[in-house]
């Protein structure tokens, strides 16, 4: 589903954020992307949803050659992805329901299908009862669930999560993480950047560790006994 080959990213200011990164994520996988702050996790995720272009190398996501996409081809890629962030990125002046519906409206979904689809994902994330709540009336964990519901509403093949539990307390973290696991169980690839090592150790999911723009550890290589 995702394949990076020798990806290098140099920013105009000269900072080298990614140095020759290569890995492959097959269908159905859950992958942790770990590493200290500044290791290059966010930059790598931004490559996957075409917010940044690699300076060198190739990025393939679900059949798209992301490194070569033209600007007007990016929306098609993003409709197949769900993206969530540490800071939720909800619109404050809209309810949970409206926030999710917005994602459908602006991608041209048929108006009469929208309510049912929104209700379905709200139920999936366990917030059907809070459909009419505004973000400020929701806890951090609930806000992140709304954001996840919004990411899911277009039935993405891949969910990209950049520190989704970074702003959450332990209880909310567990809940959101469990939700992401459930989403993965139903077949969606999940790539989750995090530096919460407790979370990583709880499971046997594949872990890719980055440091200063390079992959320094990949549990998939370990399992296959390969050298990096």
């Amino acid at each position, binding site marked *: 589903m995702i394949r990076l080959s020798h990806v290098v990213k140099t920013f105009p200011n000269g900072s080298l954020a990614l140095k020759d990164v290569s890995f492959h994520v097959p269908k159905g996988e859950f992958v942790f992307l770990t590493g200290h702050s500044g290791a290059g996790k966010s930059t790598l995720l931004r490559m996957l949803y075409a*917010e940044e272009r690699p300076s060198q190398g190739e990025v393939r996501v679900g059949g798209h050659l992301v490194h070569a996409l033209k*600007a007007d081809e990016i929306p098609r890629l993003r409709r197949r992805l769900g993206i969530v*962030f540490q800071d939720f990125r909800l619109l404050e002046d809209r309810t949970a329901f409206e926030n999710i519906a*917005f*994602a459908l*409206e*602006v*991608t*041209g979904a048929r108006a009469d299908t929208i309510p049912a689809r929104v209700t379905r994902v709200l139920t999936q994330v366990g917030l059907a009862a809070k459909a009419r709540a505004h973000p400020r009336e929701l806890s951090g964990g609930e806000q992140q669930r709304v954001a996840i519901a919004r990411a899911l509403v277009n039935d993405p093949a891949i969910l990209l999560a950049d520190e989704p539990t970074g702003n959450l307390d332990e209880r909310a973290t567990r809940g959101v993480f469990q939700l992401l696991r459930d989403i993965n169980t139903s077949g969606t690839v999940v790539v989750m950047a995090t530096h919460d090592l407790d979370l990583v150790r709880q499971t046997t999911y594949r872990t890719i560790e980055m440091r200063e723009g390079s992959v320094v550890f990949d549990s998939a290589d370990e399992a296959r006994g390969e050298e990096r």
Partner: protein
Amino acid sequence: MRLLTREALLSFRRAPLLSALSVTTIAFSLFTVGLFGLIAINLREALRDLEERVEIVAFVLRGTPPETITLASQDIATFPEVLTVTYVTEDDALARARRELVEFRDAYRDLQVNPLPASLEIRLREGFRDAVHAAAVAERVRGFSFVEDVRFGRDWVEQLDGLRDLAGILGLVIGGVFAAVAIVIIGVTIRLTLLQRAREIHIMRLVGATNWFIRGPFLLEGALKGFLGGVLALVLCYAGYTAFRNNTSVLGGLVFFGPHHMFVIVVFGVFLGLFGSLVSVGRHLRTVSGRLDRRMV
């Protein structure tokens, strides 16, 4: 479509002052164009009377047989520029002089020999009453062997031409400057709206809305402002027109724009609004969203 309209109207509600500013600048730019347009139109209307007097007079050599002149005048009447040809005989000329030139009535009465030549008075069709056409017709008439001299008030006709164009040009120049200002101001307001709505735009981009979908509301907003500006300009023009009409006594009355002109003004307003937002959205969309992405991570 409903979404598009809703999002476009949102900015009027969120930034009423900025929206009012854009509408006002468009209105003023079009008001200026409109005002000078009105002047030009009314000048043209006033000149129409004067124009009718644009006349070419061909003086005929003494002793030319009337049949020759009649024949020639029939020929001249078929020129495409020519409306009418009137044959004024020597006697007609004298009679007219006696009638019109009261001061010389006595002098003319005592004449033994008529000193006035016969002439052909040629009037031109509308649209040909300018110096170029008058000169062309005069030149052709001069070609007739019995024609002694041809006169038309060249200077006078040329001044008429100049006056007619001046108001139009002045209006276009001043209006053009205002239009440029309007485009810039629309650009600025759209940019501020973009910043204000950076979150929406950012999320739209994240979930895969196409650029046209994102631009749509802004373009609609610009077009709407342009439309309102155009209508406001017409209202201002009408107010100015009424005020002027009531405070002066121009005989024959002033005229206002016809429906055709009004339509053009409003369409031009829409165009201004659309253009201003197109430029601004094109330039800032990516920057606004991208900046937000980095700030929020």
